[in-house]
């Protein structure tokens, strides 16, 4: 049984066009404290590569990915 992750902030990014999902996530993470978790829900298939690449380039961490039928929730931990 996987550990439940409690998000400090949730964002609905469903249906947003390129490049807004990554821009919105980046803006939100900047406002958060180190160690806090953002839950970002998106319908973009590209997010499955874009969010991990963004996390790697900014030094943050994707701690969990919940793939649903029509959208995916990314849990992003602010490390920097």
């Amino acid at each position: 049984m996987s550990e439940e992750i409690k998000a400090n902030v949730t964002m609905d990014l469903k249906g947003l066009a390129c490049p807004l999902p990554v821009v919105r996530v980046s803006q939100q993470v900047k406002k958060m404290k180190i160690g806090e978790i953002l839950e970002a829900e998106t319908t973009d298939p590209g997010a499955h590569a874009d969010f991990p690449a963004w996390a790697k380039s900014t030094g943050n961490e994707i701690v969990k990915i919940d793939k649903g039928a029509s959208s995916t929730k990314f849990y992003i931990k602010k490390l920097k």
Partner: protein
Amino acid sequence: MEKEKIQELRQLVKSRLNRPMRYYLDVCTRCGLCYDTCHAYYGIPKKEYSPVNRAEVVRKVYKKYFRPSGFAFPYWGDATKLDERVMDELKEAAFSCTGCRRCMMFCPFGVDMPHILSIAKLLLIGYGNAPEELIMLADSAVEKGKSIDSFKEGYREVIRDLETQVQERLKLPSSEDLIPMEKQNADVLYVGLSGAHSIVHPAVIFNAAKENWTLSYFEAVNFGMFAGDPEKMQFIANRIVKEATSLNVKEVVIVECGTAYRIPKFLLGPLPFKVTSIVEKIYRYIKDGKISIREGAIADALTYHDPCQLGRNGGVYDEPRYVLGALAKDYREMSPTREYNWCCGGGGGLVALDNEDFRVKTGKAKKDQITATGAKIVVSACENCILQLNTIKNGYGLDVEVKSLTELVSENLIV
């Protein structure tokens, strides 16, 4: 600003001073004919939003450091030294311009303002003052290029989900391989964007045309270009070139994204494959009878917005008009149109910046054009433009629907 930093920035200016750049910097007579050609000045009639005044910010720096008169007599030479105030002015100049080049169509000397502003963008990167959203997006794209193998599995999994949407749309018995990936010797490598719509609609069309195609792992958009960073631009573009070369494809088809099309088409030099816009590909499929669309299926008045990078800077004008002319019963041309069409105000990466109020104001020319046509549907072929057209629609409360050309074709395909 410290002397060392000024020296470093001076070298950056020098690195851009080839013959065309020196010509553009030297030849302008400041006649002011470009004022009324800029959508930003049309929406916000302040001189700092005119093409000539944007270029003047760069030109004054050039005069200070590269012209004897500006160096010896800065006041007479109309020269400005680099300092924080000038860096702010450079930022305002560079990122209030979409790079549409409409001003260039009216300039008696053909001065390429966005080319001049590439110096401003380079200086901002050197000074660490470039828009952080664009730098962040460029860095992510670079990282994606470096680490693509670790992201492939997750991406392929969601692409498999999209295959069922293609299957339903085409009423096929199986969804298997409807969006192929890493297919060696495919005729076409299609490069989309992050959004599902940029993959599903083209996939429907490619399958209907029985194309031997494969989907790229990368997004077509190039934020290195928008940020004005030549090295990142090259790296991001090369991800696709390497992928296309390793798969041995004959043609790379680019999603509806003007800059993404212009870079491989015109800025990378000779490539071992053909570069085509999805709009040109759709046109060719219809002309060759590979796909059929419902002619006259759209009864509402419809107009087309030429994306600047696809039209004015790319030369793709007739293909979208042919397709839309077939689909629409009442096609209405905007005025002015084609190479003189007004920019929507979303290009140059501006839609990624936190500037919606500015973009609504500078979208006024486009709003006036759309309203004058009386059209109920506005079609374009660029993701940036579609985003900005929706911003204009919402900002001015226009009673129109904004659609992408590929989406419209996919929805009106005879299957």
